[in-house]
C-alpha cells in the first residue's frame, strides 16, 4: 500500500472504534474490539449470537457507555453520553424492530426531536410536511407523510426510519438485521436504498446473519467472536467458508463434563408438528438418557416450538407421543402431569416469580406434593426446596429471600430446582446458561450430565456452539421454523452447524 492510499483510507474513515471494552456483571461482552466505518462503504459486522454485535450497536448509539477504549469521529476522540449525543454526531440506527411511534404520523416520526420551528418556537407543521414528503420522494417511497405509522407495514416503517436518518443528515447509518421481517421484493427495495445511501457517501454498518445479503451488499467485513475482534478486510478477498471459520474459531476452550451416555427407549416422539407462523413440520424422537441439542439463530422458532410442546401455544397440526401413546397437552399444568417440563429462556418473565421467596418459587409447580387437603405445609415446602437447592449448590442467605435478590446464575438454579422438584421424565432447557457466570454455567452443565446419566431425557436449546457441541449427544438445527439438519457424532462440527443455521448449505443445494 502506498502512502497516498493510506491517507486516502484514513480520510474515508468516518467513525472508528478502538479497543472497546464493555463488561456486565459476570460477563465480558466486549473485550477490546475494533471497528471502522468508511464513507460510501457498507461494512458487514459478522458474528455468532453473543458475539457482541448488539452491544456494539448500543455503544455506537449512546445507550451503553464503554468501560474502555476510544470512539473516534473523523479521527478525533468523542464520547456519546446519551442517545441524543450520538444522534447529533450523525449516528443513526435502524433496528431489528424499528422503534418508532405508532400513533404519530409519518412526518412526525421523521422529525420528532428536531422538528422545523416557526414563530414563537411553535412547530412549523407545513414545513415539516413539505420536507418529509421531499425526503420520502428522494428515496422513492410512496408513503403519505400524513398517515399514522400504525397504518403502515414493516417495509414502509423501515423506509420511514431511513427517511428519519436522512432528515438528521446522518453520516453513519446502522442497520441491525433490517431484512428479518421483510419479503423478497421488499428486501430488493431495501438493497437499492442501501446502494443509494452509499452513493451519498454515508458510512453504513450492516448487521445480518444471512450470508447472501452480506456478500451482495457489503464492501468490507468485520468479524467478532465471544466479544473479541477476530478480523476485518475486503469482502472480495474472502469466501463463505473463510467467514464461517472466523466466526466459530478453532478450539473449544470451555471444559464440559465427560459422559458415557446410556441411551434408552424413546420417551417423546413428535410428528408433523406445525404452527401457522412459527414452525412447520417438526419431527424427532427423544430417548431417555439422551441430551438432544437444538441449535439455530435467534428467531429460528425453537422456543416457540418448545412452548407449544408444553401447551402454551397451540399447534395447528401434529402429534405428540409419550411412551408411544398419543397425548394432547393443552396447558403447562397438563405437561407437568405428563412429566414434561420446560425451563424457559427468560428467567425474569417466564421462569421465576422474582418478588416471591426462593422456597415458594421452587414448590409452585409441586404444591400438590407439599400440601394436605389444599392447605400448604411450610415444613414440607422448606424441605423440598432445600433438597433441590442444595443439590444444585445454590448460594443464598436463606430460602426465605426473594429470588430477585439473587445473581443470574443462582436464579437459574432456583428455576431448574423448581422443575426438577416435579420429578419429570423430560426436561427442556431453553438457553440454560445464557447470561450467567462461568461457575454457575459449569454447575448447570454438570447437573445436566448427571440428569441424563440417571435416565432423564433432556432437550437443550442453545445458541452457543461450544455448549451445543460440548453437551449434546445429537443436534437438531432449525432455521426459519423448520428442521434443516439432524447431526450426530462426527457430523457435529462448528462449521456444519453454522452453515445449516445460516442457510448456506441449502443455497448450495439449490444452486446444483
Amino acid at each position, binding site marked *: 500500500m502506498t502512502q497516498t492510499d493510506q491517507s486516502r483510507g484514513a480520510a474515508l474513515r468516518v467513525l472508528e472504534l478502538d479497543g472497546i471494552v464493555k463488561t456486565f456483571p459476570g460477563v465480558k461482552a466486549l473485550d477490546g474490539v475494533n471497528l471502522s466505518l468508511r464513507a460510501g462503504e457498507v461494512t458487514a459486522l459478522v458474528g455468532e449470537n453473543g458475539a457482541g454485535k448488539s452491544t456494539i450497536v448500543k455503544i455506537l448509539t449512546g445507550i451503553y457507555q464503554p468501560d474502555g477504549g476510544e470512539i473516534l469521529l473523523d479521527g478525533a476522540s468523542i464520547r456519546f453520553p446519551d442517545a441524543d449525543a450520538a444522534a447529533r454526531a450523525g449516528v443513526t440506527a435502524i433496528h431489528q424492530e424499528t422503534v418508532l411511534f405508532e400513533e404519530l404520523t409519518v412526518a412526525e416520526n421523521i422529525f420528532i426531536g428536531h422538528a422545523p420551528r416557526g414563530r414563537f418556537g411553535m412547530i412549523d407543521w407545513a414545513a415539516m410536511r413539505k420536507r418529509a414528503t421531499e425526503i420520502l420522494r428522494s428515496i422513492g417511497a410512496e408513503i403519505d407523510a400524513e398517515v399514522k405509522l400504525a397504518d403502515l407495514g414493516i417495509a414502509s416503517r423501515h423506509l420511514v426510519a431511513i427517511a428519519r436518518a436522512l432528515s438528521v443528515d446522518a453520516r453513519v447509518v446502522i442497520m441491525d438485521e433490517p431484512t428479518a421481517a421483510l419479503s423478497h421484493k421488499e428486501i430488493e427495495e431495501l438493497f437499492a436504498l442501501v446502494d443509494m445511501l452509499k452513493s451519498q457517501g454515508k458510512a453504513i454498518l450492516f448487521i445480518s446473519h444471512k450470508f447472501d445479503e452480506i456478500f451482495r451488499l457489503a464492501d468490507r467485513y468485520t468479524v467478532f467472536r465471544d466479544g473479541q475482534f477476530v478480523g476485518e478486510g475486503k469482502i472480495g478477498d474472502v469466501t463463505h467458508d473463510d467467514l464461517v471459520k472466523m466466526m466459530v474459531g478453532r478450539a473449544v476452550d470451555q471444559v464440559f463434563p465427560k459422559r458415557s451416555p446410556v441411551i434408552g427407549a424413546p420417551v417423546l416422539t413428535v410428528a408433523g408438528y406445525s404452527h401457522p407462523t412459527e414452525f412447520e413440520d417438526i419431527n424427532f424422537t427423544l430417548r431417555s438418557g439422551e441430551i438432544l441439542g437444538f441449535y439455530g439463530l435467534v428467531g429460528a422458532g425453537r422456543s416457540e416450538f418448545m412452548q407449544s410442546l408444553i401447551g402454551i401455544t397451540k399447534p395447528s397440526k401434529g402429534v405428540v407421543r409419550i411412551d408411544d401413546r398419543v397425548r394432547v397437552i393443552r396447558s403447562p399444568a397438563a405437561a407437568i402431569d405428563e412429566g414434561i417440563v420446560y425451563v424457559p429462556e427468560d428467567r425474569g418473565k417466564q421462569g421465576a*416469580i422474582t418478588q416471591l421467596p426462593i422456597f415458594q418459587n421452587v414448590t*409452585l409447580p409441586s404444591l400438590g406434593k407439599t400440601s394436605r387437603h*389444599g392447605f*400448604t405445609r411450610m415444613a414440607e415446602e422448606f424441605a423440598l426446596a432445600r433438597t433441590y437447592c442444595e443439590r444444585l449448590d445454590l448460594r443464598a442467605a436463606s430460602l426465605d429471600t426473594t429470588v430477585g435478590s439473587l445473581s443470574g446464575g443462582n436464579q437459574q438454579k432456583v428455576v431448574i430446582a423448581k422443575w426438577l422438584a416435579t420429578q419429570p*421424565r423430560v426436561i427442556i432447557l431453553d438457553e440454560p446458561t445464557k447470561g450467567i457466570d462461568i461457575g454457575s454455567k459449569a454447575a448447570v452443565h454438570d447437573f445436566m450430565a448427571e440428569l441424563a*446419566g440417571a435416565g432423564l431425557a433432556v432437550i437443550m436449546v442453545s445458541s452457543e456452539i461450544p455448549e451445543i457441541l460440548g453437551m449434546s449427544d445429537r443436534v437438531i438445527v432449525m432455521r426459519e421454523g423448520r428442521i434443516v439438519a439432524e447431526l450426530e457424532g462426527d457430523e457435529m462440527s462448528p462449521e456444519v452447524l453454522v452453515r445449516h443455521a445460516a442457510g448456506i448449505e441449502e443455497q448450495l443445494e439449490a444452486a446444483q
Partner: protein
Amino acid sequence: MSLSDLHADMTEPRRAPRTIPDRLTSPLRRNLLGWESLLLIVGIAIFILNAFASPYFLSAWSLSDATFNFTEKAMIAFAMALLIVAGEIDLSVASIIALASTAMGAAATAGAGTPVLVLIGLGTGLLCGAFNGTLVTRLGLPSIVVTIGTMSLFRGISYIVLGDGAYRGYPTSFQWFGQGYVFWVISFEFVLFAVLAVIFGLLLHKTNFGRAVYAVGNNPTAALFSGIRVARVKMTLFLLTGLMSGVAAICLTARLGSTRPSIALGMELEVVTMVVLGGVSILGGAGSIPGVVIAAFVLGLVTFGLGLLNVPGIVMSIFTGALLIGVIALPRLIAKWRR
C-alpha cells in the same frame, strides 16, 4: 441409576452440602415491623381520640353500632383483596348489591320466603361475578374497564325495574340478617364478618389457592409456565367477589328493610379504599387479610366517631380520603427522610 432412583437420590444429601437456613427473620418479627402494625397503632389512636371527643362513644351499644359501618363493606373487601392481589379489580360490587337487592325485593313482593330470598341474593351475586369473570378471562379484557361497564349495567337494571319506587315487603325473619343479635351486643353481621375474616385469611395465607393468587398477581406469565391455571384462578376470584357482594346485599337489605335502586351507591370506592388502606398493593402481588381487617376497624371507627360529633357526610369523606393518602404516603416519606 434409574429415573426413580434419581428422584429418590435427590432427597439424600451428598457432597457435604452447605445447609441453607429456612429463614433469617421469624414471621412474627417480620409482621411486627410490617404495615399491619402501623395501621393498628393508627387504629388505637383513633379509638382513644374518639373516646375523648364524645362521651357516648365508650358504651357497649355504641361500639356495637359502630361495627355496622364496616361489616358489609368488609365482607366484600376480603374477596376484593384477593382479587386485587391477583392483579384484577371489580368496581361493580356496589351495583351487584343493587341488582341482588332488587331481585330479592321482587321475589319478596311475589311472596317468597326467607330461604328463597337468601338463595336469590347469593345466586344473583354469583351470576354477576360469573359475567365479569367470563368477560375478563375469556375475552382478555382489562377488569377495570369491564367492571366500570357492568357497574352501570347492573345498577341500570335496578333503575329500570324500580324507577322511583322501592321494595319493602320483606319477611320479619329475613330482617334478622341485618338487625339480629347473636349474643348481647354481638350482631349477626359482626359474627359473619369475623367468620369470613378467618375463612379468607386461611384461604389467602394457608392454602395452595392463596399461593396461586400471589403467583398470578406478581407474574402471570411465570405462574402460567409453572402450571398454575391462571384463568381458572381469576374466574374463581370474580365468582367469590360476586358471591360476597350477594352476602352483603342480603345483610344490607335486611338492615334497611327496603330496596331502592340507589342502594349502596358509591360503596365500591369505600371497599377499594379499605383494601388499599389494609396494605394490599393496588398493582397486585402483595397484601394480607389481617391488614384488611384492621383497615375495616379503622375506617369504621373514623366514620362512626365523626358521626357522633355530628360531622356531615361530605366532610366525613374528606377525612377518609385524607386518612388514606396520609397512611399510604407516610412510609414513603419516612423512607425519603432517612435517605
